[in-house]
């Protein structure tokens, strides 16, 4: 009772009347109600603007649900741009998406395995930045919730709690609850750069690398490497996710294949200054748990025309690369199926 009195007297030093306290609460309540209304309206508007993006993401999942693949290709914008789905057969399913890190790959693999018994192989990228803090920072698991309901796996991989998962699940319906969506909203509203905004994190500039001069190529490459490989180049969290992936595959009898995707000559040359040997050492150490590690880093070093930018293949490059990858994976599958028996 004492605290109740103190509460009232604190809120109303003058008359101490309950009416004044009620007025403050009513006023505050109305302010919040109007705020929620405006927020809801803006959020609905935003959801309408990005429905194509959502649809594109969900299409990847839909397409997957219609297939019965043997191999699932996971990863970020590297495989997404390097694998041309027109060139590859139904043995393979591409679940890669720009910005995906190893945590997301585990969750996608878990989803894939839980709905397709046919999957026996998983292909993951083993690029320099795959273990970097740059990838660790991509801690938004909202889009994982589009398809996965394995909340235990999500909380364990992201080191988060169920409350946070619920919040993110809610932000799928009220997207502006997620602060990063406000930035995208601004981009869409102001610059009318929907495409850029929608792929902001992993935008691949549609330009031909071979048309750029050396200075521009070096500046772009250094900027890219700085973003991707800022210290620490090896994040403990990402190594843990890689180990999680390895043990997940072992427990589920999935053969793991690593791919080191093609990059430009400039990228190969300049990456040396960023401590990449640490990453190479980890891959070397874990090499035996992979069915194979296919190293394509240098295959197009002399073909700048195959690149859209310093570490992404152009459509033309992807076409050529997909055939090479498919051929190599095909050989592996023949031997791998035997070894899995």
């Amino acid at each position, binding site marked *: 009772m*004492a*605290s109740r009195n*103190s*509460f009232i*007297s*604190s*809120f*109303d*030093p003058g008359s101490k009347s309950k009416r004044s306290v009620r007025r*403050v609460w009513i006023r505050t309540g109305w*302010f919040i109600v*109007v*705020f929620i209304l*405006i927020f809801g309206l*803006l959020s609905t508007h935003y959801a309408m603007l990005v429905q194509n993006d959502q649809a594109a993401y969900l299409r990847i999942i839909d397409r997957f649900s219609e297939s019965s693949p043997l191999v699932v290709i996971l990863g970020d914008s590297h495989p997404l741009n390097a694998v041309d789905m027109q060139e590859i057969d139904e043995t393979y399913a591409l679940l890669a998406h720009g910005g995906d890190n190893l945590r997301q790959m585990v969750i996608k693999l878990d989803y894939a395995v839980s709905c397709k018994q046919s999957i026996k192989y998983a292909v993951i990228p083993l690029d320099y930045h795959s273990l970097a803090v740059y990838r660790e920072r991509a801690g938004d698991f909202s889009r994982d919730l589009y398809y996965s309901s394995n909340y235990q796996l999500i909380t364990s991989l992201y080191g988060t709690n169920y409350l946070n998962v619920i919040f993110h699940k809610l932000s799928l319906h009220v997207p*502006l609850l997620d*602060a*990063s969506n*406000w*930035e995208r*909203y*601004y981009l869409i*509203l*102001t*610059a009318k*750069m929907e495409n850029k905004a929608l792929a902001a994190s992993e935008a691949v500039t549609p330009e031909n690398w071979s048309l750029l001069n050396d*200075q*521009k190529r070096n*500046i772009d490459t*250094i*900027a890219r490497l*700085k973003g991707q490989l800022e210290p620490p180049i090896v994040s403990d969290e990402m190594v843990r996710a890689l180990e999680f992936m390895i043990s997940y595959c072992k427990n589920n009898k999935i053969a793991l294949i690593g791919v080191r995707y093609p990059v430009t000559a400039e990228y190969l040359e300049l990456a040396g200054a960023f401590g990449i040997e640490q990453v190479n050492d980890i891959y070397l150490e874990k090499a035996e748990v992979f069915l194979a590690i296919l190293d394509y880093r240098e295959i197009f070093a002399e073909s700048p025309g195959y690149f859209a930018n310093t570490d992404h293949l152009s459509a033309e490059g992807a076409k050529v690369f997909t055939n090479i990858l498919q051929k190599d994976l095909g050989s592996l599958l023949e031997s791998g199926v035997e070894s899995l028996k």
Partner: protein
Amino acid sequence: MSFISLNFLIFFAVVVILYFSLPHRFRWLLLLCASYYFYMSAVPVYVFLLLTTTLISYVSALYIARSQDIFHRRVWLGISLAGNLGLLVVFKYAGFLNESAQKILEHIGLGYNLPGFSILLPIGISFYTFQALSYSMDVYRGVKEPEKHFGYFALYVSFFPQLVAGPIERSTRLLPQFYKTVQFDYLRFTLGLQLMLWGIFKKVAIADRLAVVVNHVYADPTQFHGITLIIATYAFAIQIYCDFSGYSDIAVGAAYVLGYDLMQNFRRPYFATSIRDFWQRWHISLSTWFRDYLYIPLGGGRVFRVRWYVNIMAVFIISGLWHGAGFTFLAWGALHGIYYLFSIWFKEMRRAFTELIHLDAFPVLHKAVRILITFHMVTFAWIFFRAESMSDAIYVAANLFVDIDRFIFNIGKLGQGNALIGGDLGLSKSDLLTALMLIVVLFITQIIQSKVNIRTAVAKSPIWLRWPAYYLLIFGTLLLGKYGIQEFIYFQF
């Protein structure tokens, strides 16, 4: 826990509701627990440093006051200074001192094998150490009675709104406020929230937007030249102001909601007409701290001229090092010291020149020129503050005007990543324009604020005007904000 997070929003709402629900005698306990929780949400183990600082200052102050003779008073003051500064040196400067000693000894051919070590800098250590030190010195001088209530004193050192990045409060101002019974005041509540909102706007909409450019360019400035370096340096001048004053606004606003008045930390610093004036407007709680506890004890201006100059340089260099353990901060402080000395030495010459060109006949123009010159001097000095090494700082300073003519003829390509005009800025053209627009809004607001108290005017206006203004600021901030770009700059100090 960052001020710009949902966690803080929930934390603050819970603290405010509990605070006004509790009787006065329990409120200090709530605030103390909240402050320690707030601090421990970053790196829990560093709470022991905070506790140690609190204990050292509390006990030494009691003994200072109890001691009858000057010798024992000095001994206890010495214990407080050595203990608090010792912690600061170990946790903030040990790595820097070790590396510097290694370099110097290697240079003169002496082997030095002490292994390098790096400790994660405890958040806010420079701030709460200085706050605790000022208390010890105030008690020693007899300006303040020692605080007997340990809980109140612990709260004074750790009060969460200003624990991590100030304002550095004085015991004579803050401690007595804990004794006063605070009643909920709707106007005060509104004004405090307004200030917090304005601080958030400055941080996420302006500072973090500009941080994209600054971080992009200053990560490796040797890749850029000319106008790109100039823009990045101007951007940093605005970024650091909006970042730090934004933090201070949130801190002062949060404390105000709870019924406490913290000191004003910024007073439109980029409208300063001289370097001296700038330091009376920028990070006021620190500059007055240095004035009261270092400059005046050194003798201030009441000593021989040369000694006075030495005092000025010493204060500025120490102020630079307070910000960070590095030669760039030392250079930044020294540069401000040199500015200050030059302003003294050439005072008469400036006056004569002003009269010669009849600038004194146009006081408004004269003031504008002085503001512009001061702003550019301060901005130039920021290069040393922001650069990651002395070589980077020197490169930026030396390459500011390279190819400036190309920029003039290619101004339309700004923000398009064109190498012709010094390289990519990291922000699109529309983002750059938005940043520019927001800076203009900021300065116009500051000019109006100097004439009218906008916050009070808004708070007292009718609801149909007041609420749309609040919603506009809230949703404008959300929409124009950049998120997760950078933590508050002063957290690293």
